[in-house]
Protein backbone atom coordinates (compact mmCIF):
# COMPACT_ATOMS: atom_id res chain seq x y z
CA UNK A 1 0.00 0.00 0.00
CA UNK A 2 1.36 3.44 -0.88
CA UNK A 3 0.96 6.20 1.66
CA UNK A 4 -0.64 9.49 0.70
CA UNK A 5 2.63 11.31 1.16
CA UNK A 6 6.12 9.93 1.35
CA UNK A 7 9.19 12.01 2.05
CA UNK A 8 12.30 10.13 0.96
CA UNK A 9 15.85 11.05 1.91
CA UNK A 10 15.15 14.74 1.60
CA UNK A 11 18.04 17.20 1.96
CA UNK A 12 18.17 20.93 1.70
CA UNK A 13 21.14 23.18 2.34
CA UNK A 14 20.96 26.95 2.42
CA UNK A 15 23.93 29.03 1.38
CA UNK A 16 24.18 32.05 3.60
CA UNK A 17 25.17 35.37 2.11
CA UNK A 18 27.83 35.61 4.77
CA UNK A 19 31.21 34.24 3.59
CA UNK A 20 29.77 31.17 1.90
CA UNK A 21 28.59 29.60 5.15
CA UNK A 22 26.05 26.81 4.82
CA UNK A 23 23.08 25.66 6.88
CA UNK A 24 21.99 22.07 6.54
CA UNK A 25 18.31 22.66 7.19
CA UNK A 26 17.28 19.14 6.20
CA UNK A 27 19.66 16.22 6.02
CA UNK A 28 18.39 12.93 4.64
CA UNK A 29 14.91 13.18 6.13
CA UNK A 30 12.34 10.46 5.52
CA UNK A 31 8.80 10.13 6.78
CA UNK A 32 5.41 9.07 5.54
CA UNK A 33 1.91 10.29 6.16
CA UNK A 34 -1.22 8.26 5.61
CA UNK A 35 -4.56 9.41 4.26
CA UNK A 36 -6.77 11.02 6.90
CA UNK A 37 -4.04 11.42 9.51
CA UNK A 38 -3.56 14.56 11.57
CA UNK A 39 0.19 14.76 12.08
CA UNK A 40 1.61 17.28 14.50
CA UNK A 41 5.27 18.08 14.00
CA UNK A 42 6.99 19.47 17.07
CA UNK A 43 10.47 20.82 17.08
CA UNK A 44 12.74 23.58 18.32
CA UNK A 45 13.17 26.76 16.34
CA UNK A 46 15.42 26.40 13.31
CA UNK A 47 15.25 22.61 13.00
CA UNK A 48 13.79 22.75 9.50
CA UNK A 49 10.04 22.43 10.01
CA UNK A 50 9.05 25.29 7.73
CA UNK A 51 11.60 24.21 5.16
CA UNK A 52 10.08 20.72 5.10
CA UNK A 53 6.53 22.03 4.77
CA UNK A 54 7.44 24.42 1.95
CA UNK A 55 9.16 21.65 0.03
CA UNK A 56 6.11 19.40 0.45
CA UNK A 57 3.92 22.28 -0.74
CA UNK A 58 6.16 22.62 -3.80
CA UNK A 59 7.07 26.20 -2.95
CA UNK A 60 10.71 25.49 -2.46
CA UNK A 61 13.11 22.98 -4.08
CA UNK A 62 15.03 20.15 -2.44
CA UNK A 63 18.70 19.48 -3.11
CA UNK A 64 18.31 15.74 -2.91
CA UNK A 65 15.60 13.19 -2.22
CA UNK A 66 12.00 13.21 -3.31
CA UNK A 67 8.43 13.70 -2.21
CA UNK A 68 6.01 11.10 -3.43
CA UNK A 69 2.40 12.12 -3.46
CA UNK A 70 0.16 9.10 -4.06
CA UNK A 71 3.31 7.39 -5.29
CA UNK A 72 4.15 10.11 -7.84
CA UNK A 73 7.05 12.56 -7.36
CA UNK A 74 5.82 16.12 -6.96
CA UNK A 75 6.96 19.02 -9.09
CA UNK A 76 5.87 22.45 -7.94
CA UNK A 77 2.76 23.61 -6.08
CA UNK A 78 -0.60 21.98 -6.61
CA UNK A 79 -3.87 22.97 -5.01
CA UNK A 80 -4.32 19.42 -3.70
CA UNK A 81 -1.49 20.20 -1.30
CA UNK A 82 -2.67 23.40 0.36
CA UNK A 83 -0.59 25.34 2.86
CA UNK A 84 -1.46 27.76 5.65
CA UNK A 85 1.00 30.08 7.35
CA UNK A 86 1.51 31.66 10.74
CA UNK A 87 0.20 34.87 9.20
CA UNK A 88 -3.20 34.33 7.59
CA UNK A 89 -1.84 35.81 4.34
CA UNK A 90 -5.28 36.99 3.28
CA UNK A 91 -5.39 39.52 0.46
CA UNK A 92 -6.34 42.93 1.87
CA UNK A 93 -7.71 44.21 -1.44
CA UNK A 94 -10.45 41.56 -1.39
CA UNK A 95 -13.26 41.10 1.09
CA UNK A 96 -13.72 37.88 3.05
CA UNK A 97 -15.89 36.13 0.48
CA UNK A 98 -13.62 37.08 -2.40
CA UNK A 99 -10.63 35.80 -0.49
CA UNK A 100 -12.30 32.42 -0.13
CA UNK A 101 -13.35 32.56 -3.78
CA UNK A 102 -9.74 33.21 -4.77
CA UNK A 103 -8.85 29.68 -3.73
CA UNK A 104 -11.73 28.36 -5.83
CA UNK A 105 -10.71 30.31 -8.91
CA UNK A 106 -8.49 27.48 -10.08
CA UNK A 107 -11.04 24.72 -9.58
CA UNK A 108 -12.27 24.50 -13.14
CA UNK A 109 -15.00 21.93 -12.66
CA UNK A 110 -17.25 24.23 -10.59
CA UNK A 111 -19.64 26.82 -11.98
CA UNK A 112 -19.67 30.35 -10.60
CA UNK A 113 -22.78 29.65 -8.50
CA UNK A 114 -21.31 26.47 -7.10
CA UNK A 115 -18.16 28.34 -6.13
CA UNK A 116 -20.21 31.02 -4.44
CA UNK A 117 -22.21 28.41 -2.56
CA UNK A 118 -19.10 26.48 -1.58
CA UNK A 119 -17.35 29.63 -0.31
CA UNK A 120 -20.36 30.50 1.84
CA UNK A 121 -20.57 26.92 3.08
CA UNK A 122 -16.96 26.95 4.25
CA UNK A 123 -17.33 30.33 5.89
CA UNK A 124 -20.15 28.75 7.87
CA UNK A 125 -18.02 25.71 8.73
CA UNK A 126 -15.28 27.92 10.19
CA UNK A 127 -17.89 29.81 12.17
CA UNK A 128 -18.03 33.06 10.20
CA UNK A 129 -21.30 32.88 8.28
CA UNK A 130 -22.00 36.60 8.63
CA UNK A 131 -18.62 38.02 7.69
CA UNK A 132 -18.63 37.46 3.94
CA UNK A 133 -18.77 41.15 3.11
CA UNK A 134 -16.19 42.34 5.59
CA UNK A 135 -12.76 43.59 4.67
CA UNK A 136 -9.69 41.91 6.13
CA UNK A 137 -8.71 44.82 8.36
CA UNK A 138 -12.10 44.54 9.99
CA UNK A 139 -11.33 41.06 11.36
CA UNK A 140 -9.53 39.94 14.51
CA UNK A 141 -6.46 37.69 14.29
CA UNK A 142 -8.51 34.60 15.09
CA UNK A 143 -11.16 35.48 12.49
CA UNK A 144 -8.44 35.99 9.91
CA UNK A 145 -7.00 32.56 10.57
CA UNK A 146 -10.52 31.11 10.26
CA UNK A 147 -10.96 32.78 6.88
CA UNK A 148 -7.57 31.44 5.83
CA UNK A 149 -8.77 27.99 6.87
CA UNK A 150 -11.96 28.38 4.82
CA UNK A 151 -9.91 29.60 1.86
CA UNK A 152 -7.63 26.57 2.13
CA UNK A 153 -10.38 23.99 2.58
CA UNK A 154 -12.94 25.25 0.06
CA UNK A 155 -11.00 23.97 -2.99
CA UNK A 156 -11.15 20.51 -1.38
CA UNK A 157 -7.42 19.73 -1.14
CA UNK A 158 -6.28 16.24 -0.15
CA UNK A 159 -3.76 17.50 2.33
CA UNK A 160 -3.49 20.66 4.39
CA UNK A 161 -0.07 21.80 5.58
CA UNK A 162 -0.19 24.26 8.46
CA UNK A 163 2.90 26.12 9.64
CA UNK A 164 2.28 27.31 13.21
CA UNK A 165 -1.25 28.40 12.33
CA UNK A 166 -2.23 29.34 15.88
CA UNK A 167 0.97 30.71 17.34
CA UNK A 168 0.14 34.36 16.70
CA UNK A 169 -3.21 34.10 18.51
CA UNK A 170 -4.12 34.65 22.14
CA UNK A 171 -4.79 31.64 24.36
CA UNK A 172 -8.57 31.96 24.39
CA UNK A 173 -8.93 32.28 20.64
CA UNK A 174 -6.58 29.36 20.25
CA UNK A 175 -8.64 27.06 22.47
CA UNK A 176 -11.77 27.83 20.49
CA UNK A 177 -9.92 27.03 17.30
CA UNK A 178 -8.68 23.70 18.71
CA UNK A 179 -12.29 22.59 19.10
CA UNK A 180 -13.20 23.82 15.65
CA UNK A 181 -10.12 22.29 14.08
CA UNK A 182 -10.98 18.84 15.46
CA UNK A 183 -14.57 19.18 14.32
CA UNK A 184 -13.54 20.28 10.83
CA UNK A 185 -10.92 17.59 10.52
CA UNK A 186 -13.38 14.88 11.50
CA UNK A 187 -16.07 16.27 9.27
CA UNK A 188 -13.93 16.71 6.16
CA UNK A 189 -11.59 13.77 6.64
CA UNK A 190 -8.65 15.80 5.34
CA UNK A 191 -5.06 14.82 5.89
CA UNK A 192 -3.44 17.51 7.99
CA UNK A 193 0.20 18.18 8.80
CA UNK A 194 0.62 20.86 11.43
CA UNK A 195 3.85 22.36 12.68
CA UNK A 196 3.84 23.75 16.21
CA UNK A 197 6.05 24.63 19.17
CA UNK A 198 3.35 23.81 21.64
CA UNK A 199 3.45 20.23 22.97
CA UNK A 200 -0.09 20.28 24.32
CA UNK A 201 -1.45 21.68 21.11
CA UNK A 202 0.35 18.93 19.20
CA UNK A 203 -1.13 16.23 21.42
CA UNK A 204 -4.58 17.79 21.54
CA UNK A 205 -4.98 17.85 17.77
CA UNK A 206 -2.70 15.20 16.37
CA UNK A 207 -3.53 11.59 15.69
CA UNK A 208 0.23 11.29 15.49
CA UNK A 209 2.98 13.45 16.93
CA UNK A 210 6.50 13.71 15.53
CA UNK A 211 9.43 15.39 17.17
CA UNK A 212 11.93 16.94 14.82
CA UNK A 213 15.44 17.87 15.84
CA UNK A 214 18.31 19.58 14.08
CA UNK A 215 18.66 18.89 10.34
CA UNK A 216 15.06 17.70 10.33
CA UNK A 217 15.85 14.43 12.03
CA UNK A 218 12.74 12.76 13.42
CA UNK A 219 13.51 11.40 16.88
CA UNK A 220 10.01 10.58 18.06
CA UNK A 221 7.02 9.38 16.11
CA UNK A 222 4.08 8.40 18.24
CA UNK A 223 0.41 7.64 17.62
CA UNK A 224 -1.95 9.46 19.98
CA UNK A 225 -4.87 7.19 20.68
CA UNK A 226 -6.89 9.48 22.95
CA UNK A 227 -10.48 9.72 21.71
CA UNK A 228 -11.71 12.86 19.90
CA UNK A 229 -12.96 15.43 20.66
CA UNK A 230 -10.10 16.24 23.01
CA UNK A 231 -9.94 19.04 25.48
CA UNK A 232 -6.73 20.90 26.31
CA UNK A 233 -7.52 20.57 30.02
CA UNK A 234 -8.08 16.86 29.95
CA UNK A 235 -5.92 14.97 32.50
CA UNK A 236 -4.90 12.12 30.19
CA UNK A 237 -3.92 14.65 27.55
CA UNK A 238 -1.78 16.45 30.11
CA UNK A 239 -0.07 13.18 31.03
CA UNK A 240 0.59 12.42 27.38
CA UNK A 241 2.00 15.89 26.79
CA UNK A 242 4.06 15.57 29.95
CA UNK A 243 5.72 12.44 28.59
CA UNK A 244 6.72 14.22 25.37
CA UNK A 245 7.81 17.50 26.93
CA UNK A 246 11.21 16.25 28.19
CA UNK A 247 12.10 15.12 24.66
CA UNK A 248 11.19 18.54 23.34
CA UNK A 249 13.27 20.23 26.02
CA UNK A 250 16.23 18.00 25.29
CA UNK A 251 15.90 18.76 21.57
CA UNK A 252 15.90 22.45 22.34
CA UNK A 253 19.06 22.10 24.35
CA UNK A 254 20.80 20.16 21.63
CA UNK A 255 20.15 22.66 18.87
Amino acid at each position, binding site marked *: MTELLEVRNLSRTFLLADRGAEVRALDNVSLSIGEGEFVSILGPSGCGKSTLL*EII*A*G*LSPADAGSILYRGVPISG*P*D*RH*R*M*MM*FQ*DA*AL*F*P*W*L*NVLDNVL*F*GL*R*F*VSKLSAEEKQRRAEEFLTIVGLPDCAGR*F*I*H*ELSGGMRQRVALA*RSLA*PDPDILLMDEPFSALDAMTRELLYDDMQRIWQRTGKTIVMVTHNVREAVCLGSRVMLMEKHGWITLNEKITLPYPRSMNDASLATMAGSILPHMQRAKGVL
Partner: protein
Amino acid sequence: MKQAVKKAALPLVLFAVFIAVWQAVCVKGGVSPILLPSPADTFAYLVSSTREGLLPEAVLVTLSRIFLGYTIAVLLGLLFGVLMHASTAFKSTVKPVALGLQTLPSICWAPLAILWFGQSEAAMYFVVIMGSVWAVCLSAEDSIRSVPALYIKAAKVMGAGKAELFKSVIIPAAMPGILSGAKLGWAFAWRSLMSAEIYILITEHAGLGQLLHFGRELNATDQVMAVMAVIIVIGFLSDRLIFVPIENRMRRVRG
Protein backbone atom coordinates in the same frame (compact mmCIF):
# COMPACT_ATOMS: atom_id res chain seq x y z
CA MET B 1 -23.12 71.46 12.29
CA LYS B 2 -22.68 74.76 14.06
CA GLN B 3 -19.06 73.86 14.66
CA ALA B 4 -18.52 73.05 10.99
CA VAL B 5 -19.92 76.43 9.96
CA LYS B 6 -17.66 78.13 12.46
CA LYS B 7 -14.67 76.23 11.17
CA ALA B 8 -15.39 77.22 7.58
CA ALA B 9 -16.34 80.78 8.44
CA LEU B 10 -13.09 81.98 9.97
CA PRO B 11 -10.82 81.34 6.97
CA LEU B 12 -13.45 82.86 4.70
CA VAL B 13 -13.57 86.01 6.80
CA LEU B 14 -9.78 86.30 6.89
CA PHE B 15 -9.63 85.73 3.16
CA ALA B 16 -12.20 88.47 2.57
CA VAL B 17 -10.21 90.84 4.79
CA PHE B 18 -7.08 90.07 2.79
CA ILE B 19 -8.83 90.83 -0.51
CA ALA B 20 -10.31 94.02 0.91
CA VAL B 21 -6.91 95.28 2.11
CA TRP B 22 -5.39 94.44 -1.24
CA GLN B 23 -8.17 96.34 -3.04
CA ALA B 24 -7.77 99.31 -0.69
CA VAL B 25 -4.01 99.46 -1.27
CA CYS B 26 -4.55 99.49 -5.03
CA VAL B 27 -7.21 102.20 -4.90
CA LYS B 28 -5.61 104.51 -2.35
CA GLY B 29 -1.92 103.70 -2.45
CA GLY B 30 -1.06 104.81 -5.95
CA VAL B 31 0.72 101.54 -6.73
CA SER B 32 1.31 101.00 -10.43
CA PRO B 33 -1.23 98.44 -11.73
CA ILE B 34 1.63 96.90 -13.67
CA LEU B 35 3.23 95.95 -10.38
CA LEU B 36 0.08 95.17 -8.47
CA PRO B 37 -3.28 94.97 -10.21
CA SER B 38 -6.28 95.22 -7.94
CA PRO B 39 -8.39 92.16 -7.17
CA ALA B 40 -11.21 93.86 -9.04
CA ASP B 41 -9.09 94.21 -12.19
CA THR B 42 -7.93 90.65 -11.90
CA PHE B 43 -11.49 89.47 -11.51
CA ALA B 44 -12.57 91.65 -14.41
CA TYR B 45 -10.00 89.94 -16.60
CA LEU B 46 -11.37 86.56 -15.55
CA VAL B 47 -14.87 87.62 -16.52
CA SER B 48 -14.02 89.28 -19.83
CA SER B 49 -11.65 86.57 -21.02
CA THR B 50 -14.21 83.98 -20.10
CA ARG B 51 -16.87 85.85 -22.03
CA GLU B 52 -14.57 86.13 -25.06
CA GLY B 53 -13.85 82.44 -24.83
CA LEU B 54 -10.08 82.94 -24.57
CA LEU B 55 -9.72 81.58 -21.06
CA PRO B 56 -12.04 78.57 -21.38
CA GLU B 57 -10.26 77.59 -24.57
CA ALA B 58 -6.86 77.86 -22.88
CA VAL B 59 -8.14 75.72 -20.01
CA LEU B 60 -9.38 73.09 -22.44
CA VAL B 61 -6.12 73.11 -24.40
CA THR B 62 -4.09 72.74 -21.21
CA LEU B 63 -6.33 70.02 -19.79
CA SER B 64 -6.23 67.97 -22.97
CA ARG B 65 -2.42 68.24 -22.99
CA ILE B 66 -2.09 67.19 -19.37
CA PHE B 67 -4.48 64.26 -19.76
CA LEU B 68 -2.87 62.90 -22.90
CA GLY B 69 0.71 63.53 -21.77
CA TYR B 70 0.11 62.16 -18.31
CA THR B 71 -1.69 59.07 -19.59
CA ILE B 72 1.24 58.26 -21.87
CA ALA B 73 3.68 58.87 -19.00
CA VAL B 74 1.75 56.55 -16.65
CA LEU B 75 1.47 53.78 -19.22
CA LEU B 76 5.15 54.03 -20.10
CA GLY B 77 6.14 54.26 -16.44
CA LEU B 78 4.11 51.16 -15.53
CA LEU B 79 5.51 49.29 -18.51
CA PHE B 80 9.06 50.17 -17.48
CA GLY B 81 8.35 49.25 -13.86
CA VAL B 82 6.98 45.86 -14.88
CA LEU B 83 9.85 45.21 -17.30
CA MET B 84 12.33 45.98 -14.53
CA HIS B 85 10.58 43.37 -12.44
CA ALA B 86 10.69 40.86 -15.30
CA SER B 87 14.26 41.33 -16.47
CA THR B 88 17.33 42.01 -14.35
CA ALA B 89 19.24 43.17 -17.42
CA PHE B 90 16.57 45.77 -18.17
CA LYS B 91 16.49 46.81 -14.53
CA SER B 92 20.23 47.23 -14.13
CA THR B 93 20.30 49.33 -17.30
CA VAL B 94 17.22 51.48 -16.90
CA LYS B 95 16.97 51.97 -13.14
CA PRO B 96 20.16 54.07 -12.72
CA VAL B 97 19.11 56.15 -15.73
CA ALA B 98 15.65 56.66 -14.24
CA LEU B 99 17.10 57.59 -10.86
CA GLY B 100 19.36 60.14 -12.54
CA LEU B 101 16.75 61.64 -14.81
CA GLN B 102 14.25 61.89 -11.99
CA THR B 103 16.45 64.51 -10.33
CA LEU B 104 16.49 66.66 -13.48
CA PRO B 105 14.07 69.63 -13.21
CA SER B 106 11.67 69.21 -16.09
CA ILE B 107 12.30 72.66 -17.57
CA CYS B 108 15.78 71.38 -18.43
CA TRP B 109 14.17 69.17 -21.07
CA ALA B 110 12.70 72.16 -22.90
CA PRO B 111 15.77 73.28 -24.91
CA LEU B 112 16.35 69.73 -26.13
CA ALA B 113 12.65 69.33 -26.88
CA ILE B 114 12.72 72.45 -29.06
CA LEU B 115 15.86 71.34 -30.86
CA TRP B 116 14.31 67.98 -31.63
CA PHE B 117 10.68 68.83 -32.22
CA GLY B 118 10.65 72.60 -32.89
CA GLN B 119 8.12 74.90 -31.23
CA SER B 120 5.42 72.27 -31.37
CA GLU B 121 2.87 70.22 -29.46
CA ALA B 122 5.24 67.27 -29.66
CA ALA B 123 7.89 69.27 -27.82
CA MET B 124 5.43 69.98 -25.02
CA TYR B 125 4.38 66.35 -24.69
CA PHE B 126 8.03 65.40 -24.63
CA VAL B 127 8.68 67.69 -21.66
CA VAL B 128 5.58 66.46 -19.80
CA ILE B 129 6.39 62.80 -20.33
CA MET B 130 10.07 63.18 -19.44
CA GLY B 131 9.10 65.16 -16.38
CA SER B 132 6.77 62.55 -14.94
CA VAL B 133 7.52 59.11 -16.35
CA TRP B 134 10.48 58.40 -14.05
CA ALA B 135 8.62 58.92 -10.80
CA VAL B 136 5.86 56.59 -11.99
CA CYS B 137 8.28 53.94 -13.17
CA LEU B 138 10.49 53.99 -10.08
CA SER B 139 7.61 53.73 -7.65
CA ALA B 140 5.99 50.98 -9.72
CA GLU B 141 9.24 49.03 -9.61
CA ASP B 142 9.67 49.64 -5.92
CA SER B 143 6.13 48.66 -4.97
CA ILE B 144 6.17 45.52 -7.12
CA ARG B 145 9.46 44.52 -5.52
CA SER B 146 8.04 45.02 -2.01
CA VAL B 147 4.99 42.79 -2.48
CA PRO B 148 5.14 40.40 0.53
CA ALA B 149 6.55 37.01 -0.46
CA LEU B 150 3.82 35.45 1.67
CA TYR B 151 1.06 36.64 -0.70
CA ILE B 152 2.89 35.03 -3.57
CA LYS B 153 3.35 31.75 -1.69
CA ALA B 154 -0.31 31.71 -0.68
CA ALA B 155 -1.44 32.29 -4.26
CA LYS B 156 0.93 29.64 -5.59
CA VAL B 157 -0.35 26.92 -3.28
CA MET B 158 -3.88 27.78 -4.35
CA GLY B 159 -2.82 27.03 -7.91
CA ALA B 160 -2.20 30.47 -9.41
CA GLY B 161 0.01 30.38 -12.51
CA LYS B 162 2.43 33.11 -13.55
CA ALA B 163 -0.07 35.30 -15.41
CA GLU B 164 -2.72 34.98 -12.72
CA LEU B 165 -0.15 35.70 -10.04
CA PHE B 166 0.86 38.89 -11.76
CA LYS B 167 -2.64 40.09 -12.60
CA SER B 168 -4.49 39.08 -9.44
CA VAL B 169 -1.85 39.28 -6.72
CA ILE B 170 1.24 41.31 -7.58
CA ILE B 171 -0.52 44.24 -9.22
CA PRO B 172 -3.29 44.64 -6.60
CA ALA B 173 -0.80 44.18 -3.77
CA ALA B 174 1.45 46.85 -5.29
CA MET B 175 -1.44 49.18 -6.04
CA PRO B 176 -1.07 51.59 -3.10
CA GLY B 177 2.55 52.24 -4.02
CA ILE B 178 1.74 52.48 -7.72
CA LEU B 179 -0.98 54.97 -6.91
CA SER B 180 1.25 57.21 -4.83
CA GLY B 181 3.78 57.12 -7.66
CA ALA B 182 1.05 58.07 -10.10
CA LYS B 183 0.06 60.95 -7.84
CA LEU B 184 3.64 62.19 -7.69
CA GLY B 185 3.81 61.77 -11.46
CA TRP B 186 0.70 63.91 -11.82
CA ALA B 187 2.26 66.71 -9.79
CA PHE B 188 5.41 66.51 -11.91
CA ALA B 189 3.42 66.39 -15.14
CA TRP B 190 1.44 69.48 -14.17
CA ARG B 191 4.56 71.47 -13.31
CA SER B 192 6.30 70.24 -16.46
CA LEU B 193 3.40 71.25 -18.65
CA MET B 194 3.33 74.77 -17.20
CA SER B 195 7.07 75.15 -17.80
CA ALA B 196 6.66 73.80 -21.31
CA GLU B 197 3.73 76.10 -22.14
CA ILE B 198 5.64 79.15 -20.97
CA TYR B 199 8.84 78.16 -22.69
CA ILE B 200 7.61 76.66 -25.94
CA LEU B 201 5.84 79.23 -28.06
CA ILE B 202 3.21 78.16 -30.47
CA THR B 203 0.71 80.60 -31.91
CA GLU B 204 -2.41 78.50 -32.24
CA HIS B 205 -3.90 76.59 -29.32
CA ALA B 206 -2.64 78.78 -26.52
CA GLY B 207 -2.76 77.04 -23.16
CA LEU B 208 -2.69 78.63 -19.70
CA GLY B 209 1.10 78.80 -19.74
CA GLN B 210 1.04 80.68 -23.00
CA LEU B 211 -1.51 83.14 -21.54
CA LEU B 212 0.94 83.75 -18.72
CA HIS B 213 3.72 84.34 -21.21
CA PHE B 214 1.66 86.77 -23.32
CA GLY B 215 0.47 88.51 -20.17
CA ARG B 216 4.04 89.25 -19.24
CA GLU B 217 4.91 90.48 -22.76
CA LEU B 218 1.94 92.87 -22.65
CA ASN B 219 2.67 93.97 -19.06
CA ALA B 220 -0.87 92.75 -18.33
CA THR B 221 -0.27 91.80 -14.72
CA ASP B 222 -4.00 91.34 -14.08
CA GLN B 223 -3.96 88.65 -16.75
CA VAL B 224 -0.89 87.03 -15.21
CA MET B 225 -2.46 86.93 -11.78
CA ALA B 226 -5.83 85.72 -13.00
CA VAL B 227 -4.27 82.92 -15.01
CA MET B 228 -2.10 81.92 -12.04
CA ALA B 229 -5.24 81.70 -9.95
CA VAL B 230 -6.84 79.44 -12.54
CA ILE B 231 -3.73 77.23 -12.58
CA ILE B 232 -3.82 76.92 -8.81
CA VAL B 233 -7.50 76.02 -8.80
CA ILE B 234 -7.02 73.35 -11.47
CA GLY B 235 -4.07 71.86 -9.59
CA PHE B 236 -6.06 71.78 -6.39
CA LEU B 237 -9.23 70.37 -7.94
CA SER B 238 -7.43 67.68 -9.93
CA ASP B 239 -6.00 66.28 -6.72
CA ARG B 240 -9.38 66.45 -4.99
CA LEU B 241 -11.37 65.00 -7.85
CA ILE B 242 -9.02 62.31 -9.11
CA PHE B 243 -6.72 61.09 -6.37
CA VAL B 244 -8.55 61.74 -3.12
CA PRO B 245 -11.57 59.55 -4.05
CA ILE B 246 -9.29 56.69 -5.16
CA GLU B 247 -7.24 56.97 -1.98
CA ASN B 248 -10.36 57.05 0.17
CA ARG B 249 -11.70 53.95 -1.47
CA MET B 250 -8.40 52.18 -1.00
CA ARG B 251 -8.30 53.16 2.65
CA ARG B 252 -11.85 51.92 3.17
CA VAL B 253 -10.99 48.53 1.67
CA ARG B 254 -7.52 48.00 3.12
CA GLY B 255 -7.73 49.94 6.35
